[in-house]
């Protein structure tokens, strides 16, 4: 019986296989990715997917979908739709049985499609973006003769590079024709705004117009790519992704100095650091061999997470929140896949499991930042005099250690300590409190007779205790004991003098092994006064220094540790006693820890090469490996979106199965492959490729036919036309009015801002308006407070940068009009532009034309000119009659009183109007 059943079964499968392959001759194969998966996602996955597996049936993974469901048999029998429960349930009429439950039935053609798919073997396919990037063939255009250059052809004449072949191919399919090249003035403005965030000067435009050489445009592009403004423009984009801000976020939102990271970005873009290296340094610069300062500063990328300084908040909770944010941001930025879902459960749509989230998190979970108020670890930049002392100490070590190799190692260890004050144990890790408290839930403190434990400290070779602490108590002593509260005494340490916290060094007897240590306080004079400890560290003794006492060089080291130094937050991994284990959080709750996991990448992706270390560095190298399907695609798509206004995949933030399908998938793959191979991850080469294309250079006006066939310009039969970014709106106004400062780098600045924007409930930090040229810096240098960002930036769609924001959604609101009409920054710009206009002609017509050329690099057509001249004449008459109003408009600090006149006032109004025109705040 049994045998015959098996035989029969085998026969059955054989027949269906034959049948389906036979039918295959007549029937096109159903494509899982483009036809089946969208249906499943829309109708089935909600109940039969990652979160829920109703009746134990899930469609997320093939092995799940083909496994027996609750009924005991699989719902899908490959090759036999009629026997598949899934099809049966889709076609029933009883509403209690028919799927999707409580939802309208699938349409007959949809069911047919699923039936066909199962009959054809129910093949699963990987989502396109999870498949390796392969360079597709470039579509041919024109005719054979035109390709050989023998005959003229519109298509070959139009196209300038491969991008155009892909675009044209698609346009032809939809019966559209590309647009001609934009006029030169429009083109140079477009490409300048795109590549540098600034409009070209009139001279630059004139030079381009006059240049008759064949590669005139390419020369402009090369000049722009070399301009320092290039790095500033692309840094502006990256700061949203890095959620860069000058404050720490959360309630108190106090200041944070991390602008060196911003400056690192500018330099990295300007020197065209290859994108793979750019990625590695930001994710894991600290783990590179002998990292440079720059490589450490680059890790600021992931130190832009928020830190919570509010009283009563648990450091571990917010440390965890920061680590989770790093995981999510890494996926968002480099892999264009939302990974955050599987924090709580397996991914509902994409092939990732809950465990895989925490394996990935384990890469990030070992850093030394612990949500402490000081934002450590930081890289310290000593003042010049102190730097000399650092050098002294290094030279001393070199002379005091017998072998150069040993000297090198010791110097490295001491320098690391001086530059980062790591490794150390933050006092919030102490436990077994007696008469002690975690003061303000931040730092450990104890009163007279108080004590605590420091767990698991390896003392071998570390006979020096460094302690940072402070108190108001006097004549108090802390006793350090080994192993037990009443164990052997290692040291008796007088508390520091009342005042500022200081770092002290205490010589300890040589102890081997790992021990629990106990601190107890004797403070009879002022028993209620707290002794507060920030951190402790156990370090080797400097060479040539006494074992049992503090020597001269010890003192020098201490002096440096206590010296004021500028700091910027960086990433550093813990080692030894400080290595952290990672556990799964049950349903995403950090308090409920599940099984332990070790670092790894999700199985749906290529595995990490065995030679890669299982740490952040290995992860970073994996992310930029040629085999990784997403990184290059995501990067290329992002740069494309910046130029064309919309990505090839519109959902720049999501290339997963929930994202929008690409408009030109082959083009995306072509560009990704070229980016990795030919261009060796050079962003400048990638951008050059894009802006040199005929596609990019097209004029942006639309015809009724184009609007009818392609209202949103997805097919690119015309050039991009989009409103400028918040930064570009600001920078352009300053640039055309000749107010813009060329100064680069340095701490963030505070330009004019209305009163009352900042209200810090506790710390009383305030907006202190900058002076001199810092009033007119590019927008990316404006101080960014997360809870109260610069108002005009937010009005023009900047995010608050609490979390990584992958795409700014462009809005068009009345509040934007109020900014460019009335914000003093823009009124000042108008006034400066007006002064320029006045110097450029005698008649209002001449002056207005001069102003418009300054902004738009071309003349106003007569009809538009007439509107502005009318406005000018009306306002001039008004100001003639009301001289008091002239003074009110033009009287501002630094204004030239002798120049004030009704004409200048009227020109200011005209310039203000000009700076509000749609074409001015739009990249055309």
């Amino acid at each position, binding site marked *: 019986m049994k045998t015959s059943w098996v035989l029969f079964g085998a026969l059955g499968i054989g027949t269906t296989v034959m049948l389906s392959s036979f039918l295959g001759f007549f029937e096109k194969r159903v494509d899982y990715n483009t036809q089946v998966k969208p249906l499943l996602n829309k109708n089935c996955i*909600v*109940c039969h997917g990652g*979160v829920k597996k*109703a009746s134990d049936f899930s469609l997320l993974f093939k092995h799940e979908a083909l496994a027996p469901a609750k009924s005991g048999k699989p719902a899908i029998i490959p090759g036999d739709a009629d026997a598949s429960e899934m099809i049966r349930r889709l076609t029933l009429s009883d509403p*209690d049985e028919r799927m999707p*439950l*409580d*939802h309208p039935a699938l349409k007959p053609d949809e069911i047919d499609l699923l039936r066909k798919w199962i009959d054809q073997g129910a093949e699963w396919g990987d989502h396109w973006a999870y498949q390796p990037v392969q360079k597709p063939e470039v579509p041919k255009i024109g005719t054979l003769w035109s390709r050989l250059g023998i005959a003229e052809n519109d298509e070959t004449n139009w196209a300038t590079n491969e991008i155009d072949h892909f675009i044209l191919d698609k346009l032809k399919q939809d019966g559209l024709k590309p647009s001609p090249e934009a006029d030169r003035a429009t083109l140079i403005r477009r490409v300048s705004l795109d590549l540098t965030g600034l409009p070209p000067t009139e001279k630059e435009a004139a030079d381009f117009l006059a240049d008759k050489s064949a590669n005139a445009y390419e020369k402009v592009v090369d000049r722009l790519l070399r301009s320092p403004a290039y790095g500033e423009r692309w840094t502006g984009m990256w700061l949203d992704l890095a959620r860069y801000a000058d404050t720490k*976020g959360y*309630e108190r*939102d106090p200041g944070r100095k991390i602008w060196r990271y911003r400056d690192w970005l500018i330099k990295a873009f300007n020197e065209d650091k290859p994108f793979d290296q750019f990625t590695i340094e930001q994710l894991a610069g600290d783990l590179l061999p002998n990292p440079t300062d720059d490589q450490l500063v680059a890790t600021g990328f992931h130190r832009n997470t928020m830190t919570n300084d*509010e009283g*009563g*908040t648990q450091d571990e909770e917010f440390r965890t929140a920061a680590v989770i944010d790093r995981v999510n941001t890494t996926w968002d930025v480099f892999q264009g896949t*939302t990974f*955050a879902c599987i924090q709580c459960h397996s991914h509902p749509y*994409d092939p990732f499991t809950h465990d895989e989230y925490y394996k990935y998190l384990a890469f990030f979970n070992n850093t030394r930042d612990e949500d402490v108020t000081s934002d450590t670890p930081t890289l310290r930049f000593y003042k010049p005099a102190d730097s000399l002392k650092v050098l002294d100490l290094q030279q001393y070590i070199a002379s005091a250690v017998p072998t150069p190799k040993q000297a090198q190692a010791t110097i490295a260890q001491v320098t690391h300590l001086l530059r980062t004050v790591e490794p150390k144990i933050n006092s919030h890790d102490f436990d077994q409190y007696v008469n002690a*408290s975690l003061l303000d839930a931040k730092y450990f403190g104890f009163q007279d007779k108080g004590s605590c434990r420091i767990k698991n400290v390896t003392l071998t070779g570390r006979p020096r205790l460094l302690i940072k602490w402070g108190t108001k108590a006097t004549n108090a002593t802390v006793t350090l004991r080994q192993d037990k509260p009443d164990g052997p005494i290692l040291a008796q340490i007088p508390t520091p003098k009342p005042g500022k916290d200081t770092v002290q060094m205490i010589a300890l007897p040589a102890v081997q092994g790992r021990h629990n240590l106990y601190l107890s306080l004797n403070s009879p004079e002022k028993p209620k006064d707290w002794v507060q400890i920030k951190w402790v560290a156990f370090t080797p003794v400097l060479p040539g220094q006494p074992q049992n006492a503090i020597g001269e060089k010890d003192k020098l080291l201490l002096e440096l540790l206590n010296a004021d130094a500028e700091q910027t937050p960086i990433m550093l991994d813990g080692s030894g006693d400080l290595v952290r284990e990672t556990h799964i959080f049950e349903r995403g709750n950090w308090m409920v820890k599940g099984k332990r996991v070790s670092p790894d990448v999700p199985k749906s992706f290529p595995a990490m090469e065995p030679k890669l270390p299982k740490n952040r560095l290995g992860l970073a190298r994996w992310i930029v490996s040629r085999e990784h399907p997403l990184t290059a695609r995501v990067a290329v798509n992002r740069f494309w979106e910046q130029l064309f206004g919309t990505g090839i995949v519109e959902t720049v933030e999501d290339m997963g199965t*929930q994202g929008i399908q690409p408009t030109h998938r082959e083009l995306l793959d072509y560009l990704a492959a070229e980016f990795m191979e030919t261009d060796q991850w050079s962003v400048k080469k990638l951008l050059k490729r894009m802006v040199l294309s005929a596609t990019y250079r097209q004029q*942006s*006006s639309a*015809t009724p036919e184009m*609007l009818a066939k392609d*209202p*949103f310009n997805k097919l690119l039969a015309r050039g991009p036309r989009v409103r400028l970014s918040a930064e570009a709106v600001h920078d352009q106004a300053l640039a055309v009015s000749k107010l813009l400062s060329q100064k680069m780098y340095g701490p963030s600045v505070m330009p004019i801002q*209305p009163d*009352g924007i900042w*209200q810090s*409930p506790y710390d009383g930090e305030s907006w202190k308006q900058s002076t001199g040229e810092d009033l007119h810096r590019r927008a990316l240098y404006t101080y960014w407070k997360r*809870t109260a960002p610069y*108002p005009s930036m937010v009005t023009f769609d900047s995010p*608050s940068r609490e*979390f990584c924001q992958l795409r700014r*959604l*462009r*809005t*068009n*609101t*009345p*509040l*934007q009009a*109020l*900014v460019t*009409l*009335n914000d*003093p920054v823009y009124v000042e710009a108008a006034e400066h532009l007006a002064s320029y206009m006045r110097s450029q002609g005698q008649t209002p017509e001449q002056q207005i034309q001069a102003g418009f050329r300054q902004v738009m690099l071309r003349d106003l057509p007569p*009809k538009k000119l007439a509107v*502005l001249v009318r*406005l000018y004449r009306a306002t001039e008459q*008004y100001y003639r009659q009301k001289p008091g109003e002239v003074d*009110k*408009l033009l009287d501002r600090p630094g204004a030239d009183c002798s120049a004030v006149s009704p004409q200048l*006032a009227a020109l200011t*109004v005209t310039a*203000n*109007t000009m700076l509000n*025109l*749609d*074409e001015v705040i*739009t990249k055309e």
Partner: protein
Amino acid sequence: MNKLIQELQQAAAERETRRHFLHTCSTGLGAMALSSVLGSCGFFGKENPQSNAVGSALPSGEPTAPHPSQYIPKAKRIIYIHMAGSPSQLELFDYKPELAKYNGKDCPQALLEGKKFAFIRGTPKMLGPQGKFAQRGQSGAWVSDYMPHLQGVVDDISFLKAMHTDQFNHAPAQLLMHTGSARLGRPSMGSWVTYGLGTENDNLPGYIVLASGGKQPDAGKSVWGSGFLPTVYQGVQCRTDGDPVLFASDPSGISRDIRKQTIDAISQINQQQYDEVKDPEILTRIAQYELAFRMQMSVPDAMDIKSEPQYMLDSYGVDPNKGSFARNCLLARRLVERGVRFVQLFDWGWDTHGTSADGSIDIGLKAKCQESDQAVAALLNDLKQRGLLEDTLVVWGGEFGRTPMQENRDGQTLPFMGRDHHLEAFTVWMAGGGVKKGFSFGETDDIGYYGVKDKVHIHDLQATILHLLGFDHTKLTYQFQGRPFRLTDVAGKIVKPILA
């Protein structure tokens, strides 16, 4: 203008499939076009009323339960009065005579074990109610002598006396109250509501925030931020000093008339530009500039309370020359009267720990009540008189409650009487649009420590508010980072017994 609107509509129709921000929504994001856009784009299940848009992100409920239908809204607008810092329910509404008996006694250890407080350390003493309580009105609601004016309107109010929260610090608790999450980055309730409902008045923002008490709420502007929703939905703070809306004033030396001429010039040139390049976004921009011009008039007009008769100013207790909570109450009425959808009031200074006279429950809290009590009662009466209370929801409350114990910060005895933050029990009240009148829901134990009957969580309150405004809180969602988000996260039950 008519021609412009026609063109705009035409352009909008042409671009029906545009995925600008709402996957299937048309047109740009101009506030002018908002209500029509939102009405037509089917962003929460309108396309397919049966679709369970958020089901994917939710733990399974009853898979066979009927899907709730769309509701007819009981409230068209809302005034949310947030007393930042959190008033003591034990002095105002939650009368606990038993607590008086324990006054000065050590707090039982059972109430302290495993609990975390913001400031209480060691063993604090119990603190009896400081207000004198009596039952008021027909409904017999308990209100203390701290709020003599409110006593007169209790028959319009529903009290929720067993509210509870998850957060014992101000900023996260305020965030939870207004965004449904204790972390920064989520849209505020007002943003959700304007995202869902649009605005009734084209000349004013749909979501306006007014703050008093000298400081912003602890959580800063995030409590009226739009989070991941487009920025058009964020609350617009009307300021008490300077421009009521940022940059609404014309620059000094530019008259209204000149501004009108500049806007006209901009519109004419933009229209010519549209004729040339046919980008529909230009039409939206023309409309937005004209709206901006109207807002410049209508916002100062709405904010100008000097036009109110003296008796009206007197009834609220307003000094028209000074920013104050009372002034904001009057402004709130003026704004809802003009069709503003969501008016959010914050009043700072209710955090009464006992560390200073201002921050004490016997002196400071009394003073805050005196400053605000008359205005709140006047607001309810005023709305009622104008027939607005029927479809205007008024909500009053803090972000958490206060402990039945006297605070002993860091184990020390404090100079004044105060209570620490308490997340287990507090009182919120609602009145107007769709809630029962003269009703009380929920009870706490004898000393007001825990809710013991009909507890209401923050997410339940939010679900109820959205319900009253006509939303199913599980369906008002927005796709972000790969999943649909909503105000109530994965929780929230409508408090049905308080619905009228």
